[in-house]
């Protein structure tokens, strides 16, 4: 890659450059770098990953390899509200599955679809959030909701939808 190209990309990715700077351009810092980038963009855009590989002088396969290995990294944009239903053992035996089914229906998600068309909601499962004492647990962005039922979950989502409409009005 020519130096000019790197420079023009650098302009485009000034935030990424700042992050790379902060971690001293160290290839061993790849995971914290990806975390910081994801915090900025809410996902890892492909071009950003290529840019990181070039800047750190790593084969792109190393960077993409790490980005795809870890569940926390998203290569596709996520919705504004990320709803995570815990499906750890404790939540599972306390009926987390009906909650998940309810959410799929309420959000109108098709098979394999994770994010709603309007980019408002992303539905994920996680294995244990460490709040098992209050299973089943649903987390919206960072907020933990405990002792959930399908009905409470529906109300929660409707509340979030309302918030959006309320803002628009």
């Amino acid at each position, binding site marked *: 890659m020519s130096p000019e190209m790197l420079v023009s990309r650098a302009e485009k990715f000034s935030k990424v450059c700042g992050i790379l700077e902060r971690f001293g351009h160290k290839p061993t810092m790849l995971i914290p770098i990806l975390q910081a980038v994801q915090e900025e963009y809410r996902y890892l855009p492909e071009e950003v990953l290529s840019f990181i590989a070039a800047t750190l002088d790593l084969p792109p396969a190393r960077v993409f390899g790490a980005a795809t290995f870890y569940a926390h990294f998203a290569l596709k944009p996520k919705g504004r509200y990320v709803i995570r239903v815990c499906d750890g053992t404790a939540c599972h035996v306390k009926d987390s599955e009906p909650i998940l089914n309810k959410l799929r229906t309420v959000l109108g998600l098709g098979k394999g679809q994770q994010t709603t068309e309007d980019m408002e909601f992303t539905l994920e499962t996680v294995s*244990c959030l460490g709040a098992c004492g209050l299973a089943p647990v649903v987390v919206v962005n960072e907020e933990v909701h405990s002792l959930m039922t399908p009905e409470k979950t529906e109300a929660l989502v409707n509340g979030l939808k309302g918030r959006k409409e309320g803002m628009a009005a």
Partner: protein
Amino acid sequence: MEPVRLEEIAEEYRRRSSAVAARIVLCAGTGCIANGANKVFAMFKTVLEAKGLDVYVDLKMVEEDKAGFHLSESGCQGFCQMGPLVTVLPDNIMYTRVKAADVAEIIEETVINKRPVTRLLYKDPATKEVCRGTGDIPFYTQQKRMLLKMCGQIDPGDINEYIALGGYAGARRAHLELSADDVTRIVEDSGLRGRGGGGFPTGRKWRAAAAQPPGKKYVICNGDEGDPGAFMDRSVMEGNPHSVIEGMLIAARAIGADEGYVYVRAEYPLAVKRMRAAVEIAGSLGILGESVFGSGRPFRINVMEGAGAFVCGEETALMASIEGRRGMPAPKPPFPAECGLFGKPTIINNVETLASVPIVISLGAEQFRATGTKASPGTKTFALTGHVANTGLIEVPFGTSLRTIIFDIGGGVTTRRGPGKPEDFKAVQIGGPSGACLSPRYLDLPLEFDSLKAINAMVGSGGLVVMNQDTCMVQVARFFMQFTQSESCGKCVLCREGTYQMLVLLDDIIEGRADERTIGLLESVARAVGTGSLCGLGKSAPNPVLSILRDFRGEFDAHIAHKRCPANKCTALIRPSIVASKCRGCGLCVKSCPTGAITGERKQAHIINEALCIRCGACLTTCKLGAIA
């Protein structure tokens, strides 16, 4: 930098804390926050201030001649089911399920007038007795809290309180008074075994790393805690982060390391935050840094957040992840003690192991061995969850029986219809995806590393998930298979493909396609996966399935031979019908049925139209009278 003077800090802390009239401790663990603890905290502040009283959130702000009130947060106090918890000191009165609306009354009655508010105290459901606090609540009195003693009591953000309670004295002694060899020997003699699952003797691990030639060495704290149903490590990192740092400092002294890592899983943002803050403040006091306690020896700690991969809890995978690579396990030997992080000698210990080390140093090997069993000394924390009345975080000496834990501390099994009877207990899952499901015949087995290994189970990290008769054990087996299958790193064919085949076979059973050959096939694939996998994930993946097959064979047979799910959970096999004698016609099931298959008059037994029923099972979970079977 001036060496830190622990005694002065302790003295100063005691002086300031004796100046406060009362202290209010709110649990701000994940569970209590989920139950609204933050609102309660804000309300305390508002009401106290509105009354014109002095409120200190940080004890450093206390002015000598002004007796104010100290409001502080703690990590998880264990009794999460009853949260948010509020304790008023010095009287040690504990309130359960506190709401913001209760705050004014607590302040007026207890904080000012020193009278308890009876309606907010815990009532023992068995004896109906009202308990004042941890001193008489059965959940607490039947435990032995050594490791968790400070966790849930102290303010995790205030290093001075940790020091005032004797914290960092062990690390200082290790660095200034003892030789590296002394430290290793105390840990060896204590018999401390790793709490990360395997129970490997900690001292032996340290000895191997200490024996390597001097040079760059690392201490890693494994805070990945990926086992679903476990949250002990989370609670320790959130509630008492300095105990983990102190354990690492002692380990560093033993092996001669100058750098350490705390690897915390991404799902634990609060633990990451608390660990980072604790490392920073310890550094600013010269406890960490260029010259630990003025010894001239450096030790630094980095806190790294994982990125969501269960297999990264495995030690070689964890190191790969710190190095910025995919977290894939590597063959051993070489062991990390010889060739670990960045190729240097490294010890990896679990959070709870490291937090136990300061206790070992302060008690001494002999005294530490006084608790627990001969081969498994000390205590073990467990995350007690599932169908049990008192879910939460507990700590008991090794050798305690499951019966004591589930029935005495846990308050017994629960069912959909409320408190259960002893017969409602079906199984307890121990050791997570590497562990086993134990049936009632193991209720009196003393819990320790070797007794569990003898029955092909393991202590694991300490998750205990209690299950009642409504649980389908075939589905539990499938649940664990699904977990390991999706968490396999994919390096070994047998782990990657074999777990998938096991999952397919279990699906056959659950969906009614299995025949008499299925179980044999399942067992032989299980054996192959166990033998042909590189790391502990694949090697132990068959354990939950095999243990369930061993103890709950009848349930598999019912699914396969009779196409029936005894727990009424497998929707392909259920044929819900209403037991007319039990149905009171409340109509709850009618509302839950998505197809309108249930009809009936109010207060008359309802009926299900089989032609319309899609066997979703919704009515089964909804009926509170057990009238649908």
